[in-house]
């Protein structure tokens, strides 16, 4: 090895060492809040949520293309707003709302989950999450989780009950047995809507051929609103 090549090695090692020291210093100062160079894990997660990927967008049927483009532009504006005030749950909600409108359901969920984390008492956000998980993502367990979150916050929220009825009655295999307890819970916690809940119980048991149960709940319907009975009897002759 010549003397020159040995010197090159030393120079290279010196440069590398200096870069390491510099990097360490920058990291230290960022940790101390003096400077900001490296993104944090939270920032990386935020970046992912705020990602705007046009390939994931689909217009609703009949949507004017200009409106569609306008919504995407609005999404960009909402992103900027979020970046300027990332602790604002409403801004995250709005961002997710627009993504949902553009049919980017996964993207909407990410934004709404962020919004819900910032504002965990906002049951509207949880309701939207439950609906999106059920009707689009088809993740039954997650849908149930968010509907139940809604009911923790507002035990009398009829839309959450409606979502859970769809979930248990139609979509989540093997969970039909939970429909009746759910509706009885709804009747207890949301008494102002007990009539549609009782009607749903009549329909549920009549569809299943359980005439005895259907008739027992039909009696509840009759007690609340006699005028609803004829339609039900016409729809379900087995209850006559």
């Amino acid at each position, binding site marked *: 090895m010549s003397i020159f090549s040995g010197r090159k090695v030393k120079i290279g090692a010196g440069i590398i060492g200096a870069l390491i020291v510099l990097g360490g210093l920058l990291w230290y100062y960022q940790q101390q809040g003096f400077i900001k160079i490296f993104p944090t894990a939270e920032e990386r997660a935020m970046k992912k949520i705020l990602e705007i990927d046009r390939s994931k967008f689909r217009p609703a*049927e009949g949507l004017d293309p200009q409106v569609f483009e306008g919504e995407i532009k609005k999404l960009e504006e909402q992103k900027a707003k979020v970046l300027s005030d990332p602790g604002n749950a409403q801004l995250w909600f709005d961002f997710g709302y627009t993504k949902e409108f553009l049919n980017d359901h996964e993207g909407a969920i990410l934004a709404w989950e962020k919004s819900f984390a910032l504002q965990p008492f906002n049951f509207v956000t949880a309701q*939207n999450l439950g609906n999106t998980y059920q*009707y689009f993502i088809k993740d039954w367990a997650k849908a149930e989780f968010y509907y139940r979150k809604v009911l923790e916050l507002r035990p009398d929220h009829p839309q959450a009950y409606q979502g859970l009825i769809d979930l248990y009655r139609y*979509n989540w295999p093997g969970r039909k047995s939970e429909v009746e307890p759910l509706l009885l819970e709804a009747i207890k916690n949301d008494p102002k809507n007990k009539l549609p809940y009782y*009607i749903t119980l009549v329909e549920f048991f009549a569809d299943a051929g359980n005439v005895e149960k259907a008739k027992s709940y039909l009696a509840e319907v009759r007690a609340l609103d006699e005028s609803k009975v004829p339609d039900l009897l*016409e*729809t379900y*002759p087995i209850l006559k």
Partner: protein
Amino acid sequence: MHKPNRSFAKKVFAAGLAVSTALWASAGLFVFVAQAVEAHPAGTLVLSGGTVWHVSDDGTGRHGIDSLAKFQSHRYDFADVVSANSADLALPDLGLLSWGNGVLFLEGGTVYQVSGGMKHGFTSASVFTGNGFDFATVIGASLAGVPVGANIDSTSAAHLEGTFVVSGGTIWMITATGRKGIPSPDIFYSYGAGFGHVAAANAADLSLTNEGNATFRTGALVNDGGTIWAVTATSRRGFPTGSCYTGFGFNFSMPVVGSTSSLTTGANYCVDGDDVIPPPPTSTGTLSVSLASDTPAAGIVLKSQARAPFTKVQLTATGGDVVVDTWVMERKGVAADSSFASVDIVDLTTNATINESGKTFSTDHTANFTEDLTIPSGQTKYVMLAGNIAASPGAGEQPILALKSMTLKGGSLVASFPIQGNAMTINTTITIGSATVQRGAYTNSSSTTIEVGKTAYTFFSFQIQAGSVEDVGFSQIKVYQSGTASLSADLANIKLYRDGTFLADGVVSGNYVNFSFAEQLIPKGQTFQYQVKADVVSGSDRTVKLAIWRVNDVYVVGKTYNAGITPTYSGTSSANGTNTTLVLTDNQFTISVGTFRVGSSNSVPAQNISVGTNQTLGAFEFEVKGEPMIVSAVTLTVASSTTGATIIEDALQAVSLVDPNGNIVAGPTDVSTGSGTMTVPWTDTFTVPIGLNHYKVVGNLATDGGWTSNNTITVSLQTPASAITSKGEVTGLSVTETPASNTSANTQTVKASTLTVTKNSTPTAKTIVANATNVLLGSWQMDATNSGEDIRITSIAVRASTTGKLNTLTLKKVSSPGGTVLTTLSPVNDNPSDNGANSNDAAATSTFALSDPIVITKGTAIHIDLYGNVPSNVNAGEVDSYGLTDTATASNASVVAYGVSTGNRATVTLTANDGAALTIAAAGTLTVDEDASSPNSRLVTFGSNGVEVSTLRLKATNESIDITVLNIHVDDGGLTGTNSGDYTQVKKLYLKLDGTLVGNTDGYSLGAARTTINFERGALTIPEGVTGKKLSIVADIVEIGTNQPGEANDDIVIGLGGTTSITSTGNGSNTAATETFNDGTGSAIILHRSVPQVVIETPTNNLFTSSVLHRAKVSAVGNTIGLYRLSYGVSSSTGIRFTNGYVKLITCGGCAGVPDGTQLANTVAVGTYLADGTDSYSFTLNGTALGKNFLQIGATQTAVIDFFATFSDDSTADTESVSTSLLGDTATTSPNDVAGAQAAGFSSLQQGNFVWSDLNSDDTNGSGHTTKQWYNGYYVSGLGPTTTSTAVTVSQ
């Protein structure tokens, strides 16, 4: 001498030899080495030099068997092959054995039956099965060289020679010239056949000449009452001693059990009466003996070391097998004989000693070994001369073990004796480890009931404990059978296990079974448990008592020096340190005869039967364990509810017992009487196999036997032990059948053949549409529940009142009326015409003569539907109907039915019915209604997704209907006091059917008040029926705020606009359906940034001077709300008036800092007259304590607000009560700005009882209440559109 083609035999017969060799080892034939000087009995199969020979039937010669297939063509078994002796080989070679007869072979995809020296191919599978053969009995083989005979292409021709056929319980053997009866199972078995080989006889078989009964096959060994005979067709010869018998190589599992009394008795074998002196086996080859090149190098041996290897000797046989007769080992070198406890010769092929017990040196320092060892021709074996070192040998001695001499049983010996290895130095300072052997943890108690047939039974359990010095390796054990049962004949699958885990298969050699396996390392101080398990295949009354003969039969080595250890034996039944007694024994087990249990079988339940032949009278279950049972007599007892024995004796005939395969095994036999008991005495012989099998009793109920409906028949076995005579097939011993009580089959009830036909309630009178296919026209139940036999329906004649336009009338067997189709019946009929009468009063008949009759199992019912197609040329209003109308019972014309068993016309009970009136319609109708569960008008927050705004109930009549167009309307909700909303308030719409989105799941954007949605055919189908489907319209609501389209207090309604909003097509008619629109416009929703929600509770306190009269919980849903006014209506039971009303915030937690307990408004001294007995109290929440001019309730927070008032009790009765309502608003008039008004713009009792705001513009103290963003209680959740909410009552 003719010699079989050895090369061919090697190729073709290799499998046979392999099997033979395996059986040889396991069957212990090496033990019973042929020793008789006399040739084997005629017909015996003997093995010599890899060739199986058949001693001719007259005993004067021998025939070579040159292929496995030929061996199998005689139904021979390798278990029946014994070693040839010199006398056999001295018999003249008579040439190759001819082919056997009757056996089925598969060659090249064709099944052949070999018979008459030729192979006969079956032309089809149906011919094969039609001849009664079973593919399970076909043997795959090469029949090369067998001439091709005539094909078998008929099921009516007589079976070929060698076939066994059965008729009426008798088995016949077809011969070249006729047929011979098989009088007993033992004779049958002597031909190597099983019952699976028996085919049903046909008429041609039975027309063959009856040549009398067959006798045993020549060469069979027969156990006749304990005496074993070798038989020919006409004679028998006995064996005077057991050793004479075994000397021929026979074992005790070979004989069949039977009677030989009809045979001529010839001279016994071994005529001298002695246990014959065996001739020296013939060694024909040359044995070369030399020191193995890898004989152990000079080294040390340790005191107490077992099987210390000294000299390895190589033995090579050439030119023929060689049998070593004797060995002489000599101790040489500088040592004393006493340094050896004993010496062994170890066969390194098996690592077992060839000598049964260790040898000691005589005074000339030699030890003699007399055990034979066979070295097959062309093979090399190695043996090790090994020493078991004494406990106190001479230290430093250097002994050598040498093979001094040996002798052979014939042949030549090439050796240079002595053959000796290296000297070993005895070391007495090193102590090797120890191992203690004793009975193990799995030892079973002694038993005398080990049934033949028992499997995997632990006969021997032992444990080995490694001493504390070193780990011990265990790789071999030699187990001795000291009982009377044969290891090879009575036991099978002898295996060694460690704690239930398989280790090794045993190799039986005489009374020993050897196990060699990969070394088991037993860590020092630890104990391992082992089991020897075996199956019991025969040996009744014989005993199994397994043991270890001598100390070194358990081969263990210390792992430090790999030095053999002489184990110590301890514990129960152990005797340590001797080679002359058993060092460890397990308990004794006695093999018992098999068992035979009888029980009632529910395979034939209590059911109805009919008069006629082949009626099932009941069933029994026979459970046999251990060995098949040969039944020679059964007495069946019959009881009946008919009066008198003579009646049933005449009425019940030809009673048979049928096995699980449907074969008659006993009978048919008529009922006989004796002592007033009706019995069926069967004397047929049949075999009941091992396991649980069900046997049916069938018989004929004579049509003139006087049977009447509801007569019963019960068959029984009056104590099986008395009613059945049987013996074990293997043991030949009689069996006592169990239980010791009577066993009855289920009672059968005699019924007539009946069928009840009933029109099903489906279809009802209905409308059917043109072009519809597969329309349900009629449905009937065919009920044979009360029939005594299965019913066969051959014809159904449908009475049709029709214009004749419907077509493709098809009967279908279905699971339920209109349900799953089980069978579509044939033929398909055109519709008969009523000659234009066009009335269901006129009739024509459509007769379905069924191609495949319907069979209804007795005790069951079926449903038959009639389906048809509706053509396009039908006219609306035409009426068709289809029914069954004949009420005759004896020969019903509508349904022609017969009893399956009797063939008699069944009695049909039919209620005439013309069928449902089917009215033709041009197309289906789609009805649209608002579903009962459709949501009412309500407040909804902006930004909500998935809001169900309208739920429709869609029903299709006459046919299922596809919706192809929906026109969604979004209009102003029309509610008073609200802003007029429109489609701009809806971001997207979805359609939901049964909880799932339908149509475009990306949603529908609304560009106008009317939005048309198109569907492909089939995308949205409403099934025919009164229930229909529930279709929900779901909306995403826009947001409100800066640059957002939401307009506060907008109301909108979303739904369908009427019949013009929907287009649909019938799936049957394929024409546009008629739409009937009853309702479906939806209910209005009012949109806000946030909304209040009110829940009213009854206070828990009683009424006293100043008490809580009402509690309201007001929540902010969606965002912050402001509350400006609350009003109450108060009425008492006696009209008393209250004073000093006020409202107080009880709790909130999020009301802009207003503390709990704050009075929210000024006290109202006296209420305002509202109605007689009712005052109103109205409170404006704008006090300074609130911080604002209203009560602000944060998003999702709930303010609990109580209403207090004072009253004076002017009564002593304490029966006062007061009812209080929170007042809402009806908005029947709207004095305010519909987009919102100032808070003060509302007046109480004038649509301003409950005033709130979603604060969509301003929530400040200064101007929030003056900004036009306030609303009344119209449709507020909990108040609704009414003035008076639910009243709560407080009593004294």
